């Protein structure tokens, strides 16, 4: 390390106790090292595995348009739906993907506001994940309707029919919530990208890259006049994203909570859905981050500390979700309402018992392993464990949606849902699409927020005694770290 200038020296010695707390950037790398390491991923020719994966997942992704074409041209009947089960995999997948979409903005926004500096090296990919997940999610509500070509009825466009939308419908709330969430996440993500895009622009060797990144960087110069507004804007966006991220899944949960179907009609849904979303979201972040961290050797940026923290969050939210599950049963029993009671007993012991118990195993049982340090420390074990929440959260949505409506009030109209090949293929397609988009992202955009990471390195501190400084600036000091 170069201890040539006094400030860094001082900062280093003064932050020694911080060092014991495992630094966010290990081995005290110089700024250029960070730039170089992150940008290299984008600049070097794509490795073989990337091509293979991208082509494969790209292929899988094409299943989405294929299935949608079939769906739209032939009718919703190509899915396994029926009366009473009018929603099944379509909405399950929607809620599943939306849930995954939560960790991204959550990490960025909430952790940012709460000064959780460790976010810096994971937030970029997490946000990207959000965007892609929401894209996948959006497909389902958009195409689950019987007459997609009439879906524009959902938009309040003045028209000569003089008829409007029903703003009491949770489904319409969804439309607003999801589109807002997507837009804001996108803006937030892009805003964070601008300075790093500038780095890529300035390192660019080919004319094309210069043009491309140059356009995207919007002519960023890193002048302090830009920084001062930039920081403010970022702060505001983070501020509004936080309630937004909480609202979105609450609104999604209203689809069910506001209905009268036993098993849907539950007041604890909003918090329980949000917890579930964070739970599943973090699981997915880890699922993506761990492999790439290994591949690109970013151990110094995405340190074990990061992983450990996320494991703890998964443990917490997982337990919250578990609590919600048990609470549902208690309330049903406590209500003394035979319909409610039946709905929940049917969940656990009815035709769909298998779905219910796999949900419990994946979401409640598996995460408990994170009580053990070993499980949190060893990335591969973590990777193995987070696979459970990933599946479990899908099952949770399936259980909530299908088991509730397949046997509701009148036994005469009880039914059973089983998916068709179209249901399954479409879902697989979206998984492909998701990974495909993520691969493109790691290939063409900086996976890690360089300027923020630089910001939490010792040499970022211009002062000999940073501890006196407080403010809303990103340029926070390790001493603030220490306090945090």
């Amino acid at each position, binding site marked *: 390390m170069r201890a040539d200038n006094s400030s860094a020296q001082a900062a280093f010695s003064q932050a020694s106790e911080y060092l014991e707390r495992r630094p966010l950037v290990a081995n005290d790398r110089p700024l250029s090292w960070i730039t170089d390491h992150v940008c290299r991923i984008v600049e070097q020719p794509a490795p073989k595995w990337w091509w293979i994966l991208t082509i494969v997942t790209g292929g899988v992704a094409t299943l989405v348009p294929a299935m949608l074409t079939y769906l739209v041209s032939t*009718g919703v009947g190509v899915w396994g*739906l029926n009366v009473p089960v009018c929603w099944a995999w379509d909405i399950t997948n929607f809620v599943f993907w939306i849930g995954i979409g939560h960790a991204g903005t959550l990490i960025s926004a909430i952790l940012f506001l709460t000064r959780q500096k460790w976010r810096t090296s994971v937030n970029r990919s997490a946000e990207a994940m959000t965007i892609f997940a929401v894209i996948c999610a959006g497909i389902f509500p958009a195409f689950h309707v*019987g007459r997609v070509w009439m879906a524009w009825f959902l938009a309040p466009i003045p028209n000569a029919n003089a008829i409007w939308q*029903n703003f009491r*419908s949770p489904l319409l709330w969804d439309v607003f919530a999801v589109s807002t969430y997507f837009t804001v996440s996108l803006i937030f993500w892009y805003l964070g990208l601008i300075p790093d895009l500038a780095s890529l622009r300035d390192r660019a060797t080919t004319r094309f890259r210069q043009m491309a990144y140059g356009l995207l960087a919007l002519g960023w110069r890193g002048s302090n006049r830009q920084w001062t507004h930039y920081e403010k804007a970022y702060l505001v966006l983070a501020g509004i994203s936080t309630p937004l991220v909480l609202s979105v899944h609450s609104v999604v949960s209203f689809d069910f909570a506001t209905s009268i179907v036993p098993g849907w009609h539950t007041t604890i849904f909003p918090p329980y859905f949000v917890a579930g979303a964070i739970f599943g979201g973090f699981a997915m972040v880890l699922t993506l981050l761990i492999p790439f961290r290994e591949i690109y050797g970013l151990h110094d940026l995405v340190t074990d500390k990061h992983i450990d923290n996320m494991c703890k969050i998964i443990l917490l939210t997982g337990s919250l979700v578990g609590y919600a599950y048990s609470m549902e049963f208690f309330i049903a029993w406590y209500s003394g309402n*035979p319909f409610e009671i039946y709905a929940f007993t049917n969940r656990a012991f009815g*035709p769909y018992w298998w779905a219910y118990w796999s949900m419990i195993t994946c979401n409640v049982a598996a995460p408990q392993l994170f009580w053990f340090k070993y499980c949190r420390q060893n990335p591969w074990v973590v990777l193995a464990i987070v696979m459970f929440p990933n599946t479990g959260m899908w099952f949770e949505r399936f259980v909530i949606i299908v088991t509730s409506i397949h046997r509701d*009030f009148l036994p*005469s109209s*009880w039914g059973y849902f089983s998916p068709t090949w179209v249901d399954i293929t479409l879902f697989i397609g979206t998984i492909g699409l998701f990974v495909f988009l993520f691969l493109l992202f790691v290939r063409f955009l900086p996976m890690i927020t360089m300027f923020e990471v630089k910001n939490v390195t010792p040499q970022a501190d211009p002062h000999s005694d940073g501890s006196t400084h407080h403010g809303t600036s990103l340029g926070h000091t390790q001493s603030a770290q220490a306090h945090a």
Partner: protein
Amino acid sequence: MKRILHHPESNANGRTYWRSLGEYSRTPDFEEWLHREFPAGAAEWENDPLSRRSFLRLMGASLALAGLSLTGCRRPEAHLVPFTQSPEWVVPGKKMSFATAQPRRRGSIPLLATTFDGRPVKMEGNPLHSVSQGASDNHAQASILDLYDPSRRQFITRRGQKASAQATEEELQTEINRIRTESASTAGASLAILADETLSPTRERLRTELQRQFPQATWATYEPLAPGRDLEASALVFGANTEFRPNLSAASTILSVDCDFLGSDEGDLIDTRGFASGRRTRNPGDKMNRLYVVEPRFSLTGTMADHRLSLRAGAASAFLLELARQIRAIRPSAELNNILSQAPDLPLPSGIDPAWIRECAADLVTNGSHSLILVGRRHSVGLQALALALNSSLGSIGTTLFVQPRLSATSSSIDSLAQKIRGGSIRTLVILGGDPAYNAPTDLDWSGLQSSVETSIHLSPVFNATSARSTWFVPGTHYLESWGDTLARDGSYLSIQPAIQPLWAGESQLDFLSRLAGRPKPVGPALIRETFATKTNLGGEKLDQAWNDFVREGFLPSPTTTSSIRTGNLAPVAGLLSQMEAASHEEHGSLEAVFIHSSAVDDGRYANNGWMQEWPDPMTKLTWDNAILLSKQTAESLNLKNEIIKGILVADVVQATLAGQTVEAPVVIAPGHANFAASLPLGYGQDMLGPVAKGSGFNAYRLRSSNTDYLGQGLQLKKTGRTTQLAVTQEHQVMEGRDLVREATVGEFNENPGWAKKVGMDAHIPPNQTFYPNPKLDGQHQWAMVVDLSTCTGCNACVTACTAENNIPIVGKDQVMKGREMHWIRVDRYYTGEPEAPESVSQPVACMQCENAPCETVCPVNATVHNEEGLNVMAYNRCIGTRYCANNCPYKVRRFNFFDYNQRALDKLYLGPIAPKETAETIKLQKNPNVTVRMRGVMEKCTFCVQRIEEAKIGARVRARDSADTRIPTGTLQTACQQACPADAIVFGDLKDEKAEVGKLRALPQNYSLLEYLNVRPRLTYLGRIRNPNPSMPGAKMNYIPSHGHGENHQEAKTGHTPAEKHSEESHP
């Protein structure tokens, strides 16, 4: 919705659909025009300009109609094609009704045919006639679809080779001439005619005329489901040419021994109405009839029973004899003594409590002349006679049992005809209607016989097995296409009036017979008019007047035809009883086979009728198939099972063998079925009838021979190890202790009339409170419906009526199995009580039109909202199909168009746009122009027939003109289901109209709404079901009201697992 019923362009195929509009005006020039029109076959079209012009008029009408309500292309240049000459009385776009009647084997149904611009689209009962009083049944409703059945053969066929219509017409005439000469030479010995039963006096006239010309000609009638043993019995007891029919309205105690008088086979509209009238209990203290039923399988009648005994048909004789003895014991009479003198002492089957019979007898005796004993037609003449004897000794003849002149003429049976054919004397066989090759007893080997005859001519509206084996096939007419006459159950004389000219070349039985009798092809109603003249013996002016009334009203008003006979000659009965046999042994190796009609396809004549195929059997809820019905115990002992797997009924397939004949069939476990017995519904397995019939069910006729025509002993079921998937519309058969159908005994009702309001959940819930004031439902009318569960027999006629009225598509077996049936109204059927002696309740469920409709609030695009008259309305063209509303509907009455059911072939649904859009033009012609034909991707549901409501409102306003009185007159508006219901169990009307009945019924204490606690405030409510059990009956269940809340029923549900219920629990490993 862009759903355009393209009316045929003016070309050949178009022309074939549309014929005389002139018929609308029954005026001289029309008559005259008709005269020229009718005798012509298809041939005349080409050369007769007048008929071509008349066709074009029709095209005019049809296109104008297309303009009226069924167009909607984006911007193409559309044309308006007016009439060239406007026919009288015709206002394009206004509907017209014609009185007509549907011929039935034991009593025809007086009907009105509603036509729009020349297309009959809906059948209703004839409100003027006492038999129907506006009601109808599912077969009457469905018969209109047969008219448009695209698989009707359209041309005369000779040995299967199509010849040009022109030529064939002549050939046929020459052939007929040949037959006449031939028959003349043999005095008719070489001529035989086999006819179905149409009860047509005119046909009788022609028959006698024919027999005058050819004295030795054979005339046989065959109806697979009308054995006529009751007629024989009647002849013995009451004398020749008599028959009897129950008068249930007068009966206060009814014992039905395997007689399904509420079903569509043995029953008639008057029976249901009569029974319902005795059943209807509005206020505490009202009198109520009591029904005892003894039967092998749960029939509709059984579901209404206050006391039901499941007993093998074979044991019926033992039962009735025991009953007779009990009656004699209670009230000794010489008459009964000598009847029973020679009667054998038959052992009662195990598990039959003599006390049961004793109490039943006692009840019958107490009610004397107001009690009634009915025996199923399948049972022996002896048993029938015994029943008559008992009735007469109870003094009920003339009060609860009417004797009247026989409707059908006596003629020789198919067996004797078979004899003659074997004898070789028959050279020409003319078959009028029917399908003996399919449904004649197997031992006759009809196909063989028929082909052994030189010339066989089959006249039939459809090309069926018999047609295929005939040397000539002559397309017959549907009853809506031709003039005719027939008799109602009460013997009154009905006119059959065409509502449309034959869609394709075709002639009626009367036309053909008169040609056979050497007359020219009759002209219009000429033949009927003759008959009418002889019946009324009027002439001149008076005749014309009477005739016009007859045709307009649809029947000849006549004093009741019931004869004055009060007692019968019981002497012969004793002898008959001596031959009575005991039931076969109770062993699972050889079961008792009972052949029953199918409630859906009857004897098979509706097998190619989509509505009937998709119509769920009232008891098994089975569609598109028939199956052998077994009791749970019998099935288990044969190790046969049903399973509900993924909502589909998976049934074991057995090999059924009876008297050497074998078929393979699925078994369905039917709660309440007698042990050691199996019921085999007839009428299925006719692949060659057409695409609809193809592949549905098995042909039970194959097991049926002359001596086991209704009852066979020694049926063996061998498990094949294979299973088959059956489409049921209701997989789950118990109420799970939920208080959906609420029952009470008369006693309970009398002391606690309001019981139904506080049961189960509703017993605990506090009065509902709303956060905010509801917007006013301040419409001029407030629509509501009340269903009386005490009178609803669960016959499902409402389902068919609704299907016909609201353009409800059929979706096919595969889709029904997926749970995608489209019926807007369904009849839920639950089993209650002990598994070994289950009771059954049925509950019609349509959209409840909730005032706080949960479906509305969740629709993002306001496609379903409330109108100010309390209707939950559905704007199909606004719906984008999120299906959220269906999820949030607690009654699950919303239906979704998962595919283009109206446009795609049902077997090509999954091919989407690759498959061509194929719906027969004719099927489109049936659609009701006042109801949108829904497209793929939209939700649909019952709207209380909003099209009828709007029509009525518009009518009222048009009449009001500049006055303020725009109210719809009380009782002028009926929904389709209400109109069809023969039990008047469905009452619909305006709550704001204090004269209307619906308001009064809603105010009754026993009126309750389903799932009250949700506070959705349904506009469709139910009158709790009231039963009338006999307290002194052994093991009579006297408390139907759950002791507290749902607990008691819960018990019941737990113990009362019916097979299907069990399976739905087990089925998912």
